[in-house]
């Protein structure tokens, strides 16, 4: 182990420019990967928050009383597409209104329950059904108005899909660049020790003895860069949790009802970065060693 460390130190000293550019490129790679994963998770979280609020609200005419709304509600509850129906009575609407406008006593005085319409808040399993549902409900008897905001969700979704594609392309490109940087820096290292390696083979060195320092070197660069990127990601996510932007925490896209605090998330992300750093370094240096250490 100290031997491997010595040869690494020797390389770092001798190839300063190579070392700096190696660290920069790999650091940027993992930073981009980290940011990409962050963006995916943040936008998925955002989407989840938006979707949670995406609902059709059906306001009823005053003459369409609770006795008529209830069977209407039961009928909706049995609809396949619908996940949740909540009845908001005139009184409840007033209570909510009061809550929202707490600090405006003048406004509150002028308002009574009778002014506000009763409504049903309807959530669908799939927000794609919101539009057709709202069209159907608009036709129903006793319905005053149907409101839904689906556009926001859809637009956000399409923007984030574009961002994902661009991000994925960036991540892949930088991984390819990093991979070739590992290979070329190891080639430099191997060439700079040419006669020593020749002698080592001559005296019967095991392959692993010759290869090990180079594999260690590749893994060292890659993991160190990933660690630096991880630290930056932890700081970023720590900031997110300080500002408390997402009260429930971050949601990891595809698991419903799964929320995680930004700090915990950043720790998981760090693990992902460091593991990918290790894999990139390991496979990159193995490929380089295979290519330039001929037997």
């Amino acid at each position, binding site marked *: 182990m100290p031997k491997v460390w010595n040869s690494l130190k020797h390389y770092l000293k001798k190839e300063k420019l190579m070392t700096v550019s190696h660290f920069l490129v790999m650091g940027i790679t993992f930073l981009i990967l980290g940011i990409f994963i962050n963006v995916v998770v943040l936008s998925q979280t955002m989407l989840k928050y938006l979707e949670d609020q995406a609902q059709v609200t059906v306001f009823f005419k005053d003459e369409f009383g609770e006795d008529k709304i209830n069977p209407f509600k039961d009928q909706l509850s049995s609809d396949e597409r619908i996940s949740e129906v909540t009845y908001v009575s005139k009184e409840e609407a007033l209570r909510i209104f009061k809550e929202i406008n707490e600090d405006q006593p003048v406004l509150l005085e002028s308002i009574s329950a009778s002014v506000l319409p009763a409504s049903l808040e309807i959530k669908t399993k799939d927000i794609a059904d919101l539009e057709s549902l709202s069209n159907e409900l608009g036709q129903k008897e006793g319905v005053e108005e149907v409101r839904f905001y689906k556009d926001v969700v859809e637009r956000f979704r399409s923007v984030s899909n574009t961002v994902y594609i661009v991000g994925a392309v960036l991540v892949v490109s930088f991984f390819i660049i990093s991979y070739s940087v590992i290979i070329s820096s190891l080639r430099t290292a191997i060439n700079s020790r040419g006669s020593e390696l020749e*002698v080592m*083979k001559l005296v*019967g060195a095991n392959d692993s003895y010759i290869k090990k320092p180079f594999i260690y070197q590749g893994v060292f660069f890659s993991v160190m860069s990933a660690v630096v990127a991880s630290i930056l990601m932890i700081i970023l996510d720590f900031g997110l949790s300080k500002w408390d932007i997402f009260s429930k925490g971050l949601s990891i896209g595809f698991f419903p009802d799964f929320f995680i605090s930004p700090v915990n998330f950043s720790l998981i992300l760090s693990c992902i970065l460091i593991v990918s750093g290790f894999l990139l370094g390991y496979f990159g240096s193995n490929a380089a060693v295979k290519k330039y250490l001929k037997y």
Partner: protein
Amino acid sequence: MSQIEFKNVTKEYISGVKVLDDVSFSVEQGEFIFIVGPSGAGKSTVIKLLLREESMDNGQILFQGKNIVEILPSEMPDYRRKIGVVFQDFKLLDSKTVYDNVAISLEVVNADKKDIKNIVPNVLSLVGLLDHADYRPQELSGGEKQRVAIARALAHEPDVLVADEATGMIDPDSADEVVEILEKINSLGTTVIMASHDQRIVDKLTKRVIKIEKGKIVSDKKGGKYRA
């Protein structure tokens, strides 16, 4: 079973140009043989084929009964340790001391530190350089450098020591010292194969001489002379 057997070995670096042509000979454990011939005759090629640094186009080489073509990559380091090699240009590492130049052959197989500390002084004293352990190669004469290279080749206690023009770059007195050391090693049981076109040394030792010319063995005699 001979230790080393060349059977009808043919080698072409460039297709159609036979550098070795139907070369057959065998070497017994503990022999001392010279491979002689003019420059370009194919002496080094014989050694490279034995070390499997080059592959042959025809024929077989058996080492201790085993066809060396069949040695797996994973077995190669082991094979190289059975055959110590010394070159005309020494191939020492200038950045390392004499001691470390010898120790490297043990370090590469992850030998115990204790073993290294035992073996290195032993082989250095065998070649008479124990007092030069802390020198660097550039502080040594040609003959001394070659003795370091021999010490390095001996660290694994090889079955065979191969020397390719080992005296080619050193003065006659130093060359005599090197050859004396090779004889000493041979007397301890190691086979020595020495490629050389140094008539003076070959004639002085009167060992078995295999003479190659233009890729063919033209004579193979015990107690031979260069011009026999």
